[in-house]
């Protein structure tokens, strides 16, 4: 394809992505280096019968004018990154010198909002991604084993948790595990503890969020694996069987190697999606127990005072996280493409 026609064909897409994806990244980086203006304080002298007092008050007009003139705020350099809500260098340093053990240090670290968020996000990603893959694989093997007539309905029902709006899917589960819901009652009966409530317990909340994560993304892994299973070479399978391979050996040495490239693909998509985990936390109203990086940004942006700079700094740190997470995959893709051309 000629350079000029390529240019015109991709122009709309490229413009859209530049304006609304590349530019916001620049904008976020800039914003994170500024902080909100302080209020303009004026001194007013009040003279009454008992002498004069000087009181300070906020000059609303001047503050508004200043904010109007410089909407970004005032230059702060890396201050926002260093404050307590982000990398918290001072607090971490202090904790390092004062903590008696690693455990103690980790405990202090988990009380800092940013480290708490990153701990949850990474744990979630690290646990949900492999379990999704394993679970999806098992469903695919199962569907492949049942009668052909049952496959259509199975796929139909399996698609539901994935297709449904994340907020909705999470809410539906959350209402069921509510202490007054059917699963909540079941849990209480199982644990023999009438006061057991998922809402009140941090570990249970983390587990529920991860269960939701696996429930909602296993169908994706399943569908991809199921399609892959249709293309396994039956001759190889039969040959393995004639050579005396058991069912497990056939899966281990014929089917799984065939599915490895698909696993890379699923892992890549799942890593990207799990790292941005956000909606279930809103649905479960789990902010007291679990916060992800995305939720931290959401929290800063929402509410009466929009903490744009704080949100921007968290965003920049999140983007760095995504870059680190994706770097092995990117390097690999780059090498593969290099070979192909």
């Amino acid at each position, binding site marked *: *394809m000629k350079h000029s026609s*390529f240019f015109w*064909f*991709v122009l*709309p*897409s490229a413009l*859209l*992505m530049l304006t*609304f*994806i*590349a530019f*916001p990244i*620049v*904008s*976020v980086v800039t914003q994170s280096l500024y902080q909100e203006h302080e209020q303009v304080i004026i001194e007013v002298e009040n003279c009454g019968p008992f002498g004069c007092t000087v009181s300070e008050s906020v000059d609303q007009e001047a503050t508004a004018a200043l904010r109007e003139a410089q909407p970004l705020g005032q230059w702060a350099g890396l201050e926002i990154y260093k404050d307590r809500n982000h990398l918290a260098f001072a607090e971490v340093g202090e904790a390092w010198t004062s903590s008696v053990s690693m455990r103690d240090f980790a405990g202090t670290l988990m009380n800092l909002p940013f480290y708490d968020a990153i701990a949850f996000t990474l744990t979630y990603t690290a646990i949900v991604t492999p379990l999704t893959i394993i679970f999806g694989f098992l*469903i695919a093997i*199962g*569907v*492949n084993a*049942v009668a052909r007539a049952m496959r259509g309905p*199975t796929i*139909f029902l*399996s*698609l*539901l948790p994935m*297709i*449904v*709006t994340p*907020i*909705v899917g999470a809410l*539906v589960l959350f*209402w*069921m595990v509510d202490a*007054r819901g059917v699963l909540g009652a*079941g849990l209480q009966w199982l644990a023999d503890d009438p006061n057991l409530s998922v809402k009140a317990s941090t570990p249970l909340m983390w587990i529920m969020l991860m269960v939701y994560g696996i429930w909602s993304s296993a169908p*994706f892994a399943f569908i991809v694996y199921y*399609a*892959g299973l249709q293309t396994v070479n*039956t001759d190889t*399978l039969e040959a393995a069987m004639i050579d005396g391979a058991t*069912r497990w050996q056939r899966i281990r040495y014929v089917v799984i190697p065939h599915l490895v*490239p698909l696993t890379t*693909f699923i892992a890549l998509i799942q890593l990207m999606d799990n*790292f941005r985990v*956000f909606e279930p936390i*809103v649905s479960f109203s789990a902010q007291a127990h679990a916060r992800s990086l*995305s939720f931290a940004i*959401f929290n*800063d*942006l929402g509410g009466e005072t*929009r903490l*744009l700079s704080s*949100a*921007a700094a968290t965003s920049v740190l*999140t*983007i760095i996280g*995504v870059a680190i997470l994706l770097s092995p995959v*990117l390097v690999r893709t780059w090498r593969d*493409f290099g070979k192909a*051309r």
Partner: protein
Amino acid sequence: MSKATRLSPTTKIVAYGFLGLWLIMAAFPFIWTLWGSFKVEGDFFSKANWANSLFGTLTITETGGSFTGDGYYGAWVQEEFWRAALNTFIVCVCVVTISLTCGTLGGYALSRSTYRYAFWFLLFALMFRAMPPLTLVSGYLLPFFEWNLWGHLSTTIIVLVAINQPFTLWMLHAFFKNIPKDLDESAMVDGCTRFQAFRHVIIPVMWPGVITTGLFSFLLAYNDFAVTTMLLSKENQTMVPKLVSFLGTTQTKGNVMFAVAAVVSITAPLFVMIIFFQKQIVSGLTAGAVKG
């Protein structure tokens, strides 16, 4: 069925048992919520006995019948959920149309170019695909406030289209790769320009891929919460942020049932969509992995 795939009875039982369990896990929550949405709150969240939500004990005493549409009435009429549904409809139609228009042009060019920059373009799109939407939203807010763009449906539509683009491009790129190059090249030998070849030769055969991609664009717009909740003003809210606002306001009023009714209303169109387009969804999910 070939010999290699025949199963022993025990394996069969294990397979059926596991699948049955999974199907219950996948479908039961939705059936339960649909059933419960026609009850009163005291039954849906039953302190006394979970079986109340099955038989609707309180629903009978409170309303007279064992089913009630109060939740739906409250959500759709009283809280004006229909407005949100209308907004969602507008957003989805526009997002799908615009992303497919830009995406087909771009995806086609990317599948036909043999230069290295096409690969870099796709790699950048992949990196953009990985950006959590909220990090981007925090970049939009200030400029949108400054230029008075915040709160309008049109702004949200454009933002959703842009966030959608990387995915759309990758998917359509994979589909166009499967359309033989000879098709449009022979048209160009006959004197067509590149665009005429695209218009008269490629467009007539591209629909299966475009429909599949369109379904996923629709899902992204329909399911989005992060962008719509941050960028839309209250009166322009789409269904998902509206639902979340129910959770905040109605829990204090004791009307969680509005939210339950809204949840069912949001799920219903998706359900219909899977019934009609199951094949396309499955092929779309596997397109990137198996063919690419």
